[in-house]
């Protein structure tokens, strides 16, 4: 429970930092997209009742997937910009926001792996 809470808080803080950086560099729509993804983590704390831990894990898991997608998307964007060289254009240079998002993407990927292995994998088999 404690680990889930810490991971959620850490993910929220980093994601909000990424949102702020994209907002500063005037990438408004993308920062709104990332803010929506940050809310997935934040809503994890609105889960109460008996299965709250499970649902907090759900928010952490899905939030991590979404940030992995966002990071993968910016990474692909960066990689594809190399094709522009063929057309005489410049390669895109990554910003601080991009680098931090890739870092968050990596951390999210690690969280997905960890949650699938220890929290979401079917535990045992039983007769119906």
């Amino acid at each position: 429970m404690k680990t889930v809470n810490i991971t959620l808080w850490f993910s929220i803080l980093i994601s909000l930092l990424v949102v702020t950086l994209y907002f500063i560099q005037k990438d408004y729509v993308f920062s709104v997209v990332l803010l929506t993804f940050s809310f997935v983590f934040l809503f994890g704390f609105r889960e109460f009742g008996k299965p709250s831990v499970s649902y907090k894990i759900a928010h952490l898991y899905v939030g991590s997937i979404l940030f992995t997608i966002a990071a993968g998307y910016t990474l692909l964007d960066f990689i594809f910009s190399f094709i522009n060289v063929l057309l005489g254009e410049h390669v895109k240079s990554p910003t601080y926001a991009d680098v931090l998002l890739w870092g968050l993407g990596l951390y999210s990927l690690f969280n997905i792996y960890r949650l699938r292995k220890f929290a979401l994998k079917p535990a045992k088999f039983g007769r119906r």
Partner: protein
Amino acid sequence: MVITVGLVGNPNVGKTSLFNKLVGARQYVANWPGVTVSRIEGATSYKDHTLHFIDLPGVYTLSATSIDEKITRDFLLLTPPNVTVVVIDSVSPEQGMYLLLEVLELGLNVIAVFNAIDEAKKKGVHFDKNLLQDSLGIPVILTSAHSGEGIIELKDTIVSAFKNNYRAKFLDYGYEIESLVKSLEHCFGEEYNKRFFALKLLEGDELAKSKISYCEFKLDESTEEIGVEIAKCRYEYINSVLSVCMQKSSAPITDIEAIDHVLTHKYLGVPIFLSLLYLAFNFTFKVSEPLVNLLEFLFGKLAETFGNSTLITSLISDGVINGVGSVISFVPSIFALFLALGIMEESGYLPRIAFLMDRLMYSLRLTGRSFMTLLLGFGCNVSSVMAARGLSDERERITTILVSPFISCNARIPVYLMIINVAFSQRKAETFFFIYILSIILTAISSRVVNRVVLKGENVPFIMEIPRYRFPKLSNILTYVWNRGKHFLQKAGTIIFFVSIVVWALTYFPNPDNIENSLIAIIGKNLEFIFKPLGFTWQTVAALFFGGVAKEIIVSSFAQFYGSIEKVVLHPITAATLMTFILGYIPCFATLAAIKSETGSSKYVIFSVIYSFSISYVLALFVNLIGRLVI
């Protein structure tokens, strides 16, 4: 020897995937129910036999209500195949087995196929095949259309079933129901399957009621209770079989439940969907942009090589290369968009949106099922018009057909891309995203209008089986992308090609050096007054005129009028007005023909043309006026 094999099953259990695997076909498959709305046939040779497969629309029961369900029921009743393969979802087999019991009542030669066995194993679901065969009294095969597991065994079993003719024993419903069934059997003529119709009559089936020749039995409220009792008997039997033959894991929360909990969240679901849609559109532009530029460059060079000094070279370079090439240049963007949408659909995410949208759709007097049907319109409006036959409520079906043309089909994509490249090059993804959202809003408003003005009736509840999440399979996504994209390429080689030549001829004559005096200019200038309030020039009017045949021709016409796409000049306000107008304007000829054939009435075709044109005009005028006030 030809063996006819019918593939029957609940919607979205993988019948079409299995069909593709069995016959090596590439029919469109998707991870949501209701994709197959008509029967699809294919054949393959196996061990001196020709296996003729018929893939039937998915049904939950043989008490059919919608057009596609009737296709399946009538096929089994009127032209029963040599072997009937009932495809059951291994992960949640209860509903599939219910259908199996109904099919067995028809006395057919049946094989039960538990499909998606690989997914079931991953989720900790295991079957004892031998016990299942003993309990059901028919051959049982465990297959995976995904990995190909059990496909050869299935073909072997089809051949042996054809030779041995397996007939299972009927389920015993208990003394009271069985006596009633016996007494009702004589109500039906010899040409009918008496036991099946007697049971269906007790279940309140309309077809069974219509087939009664003579009956002393009176159908009343107690008959409804017997119908419930029959269903209860079947489920009790299914549960007893599964309790012995199936093992299932017991996890506190699975990854699927975790994903569903968030993606279908009351507050987060829609914002996440819109965010992912935006990322998909942005991906489309960024990934495809270099390729689009490369194609434009190559077509430009090719046109330059030919030149346009004579009639023939002008026809080749201006009419064919410039006209058709300008449309083909956008092929990478179209394929990239469908790649992104294909991943969302194949993963099982899009059907969740239908679930999320159901509340909104209900207020528009439609259901989430309509939303799924309309989603097909992003490929081609003809597909969504045809797929509406899967809707059981007639009012909902007609409404869905009439609002389908407002969904931005792939024909409109190159037009939007051209306008966006010309007028909104700094905000491409945002503009594209906005026009798609506007398309959905316009569809929603039109649903309300059609329901209020044209059709009146009560809402039917939305019941839809939510498919499982799957890791998207590359071959399925590529099939999806190809099936949707090839339509565009086919049009480029046929209708766009011919109309481009017509446009070229009208541009070339009578004076090739002065387009202002050409025949096309006369057409455009004569119609210009209609579009004067929208700020359209004669070139835009002429392009829209020919775009009525197929929307892509607008791009081809612009390329010919201005020399190339890069030379097109559009003010942002005019561009926004034009995009809004193109959203509706008029459905293409193919969609109008589909509306006529699916509704069987010309009045709906006329309504569709007049309504689309009027609403697009008014909306475009509104955008133009607001634009002029703001800028």
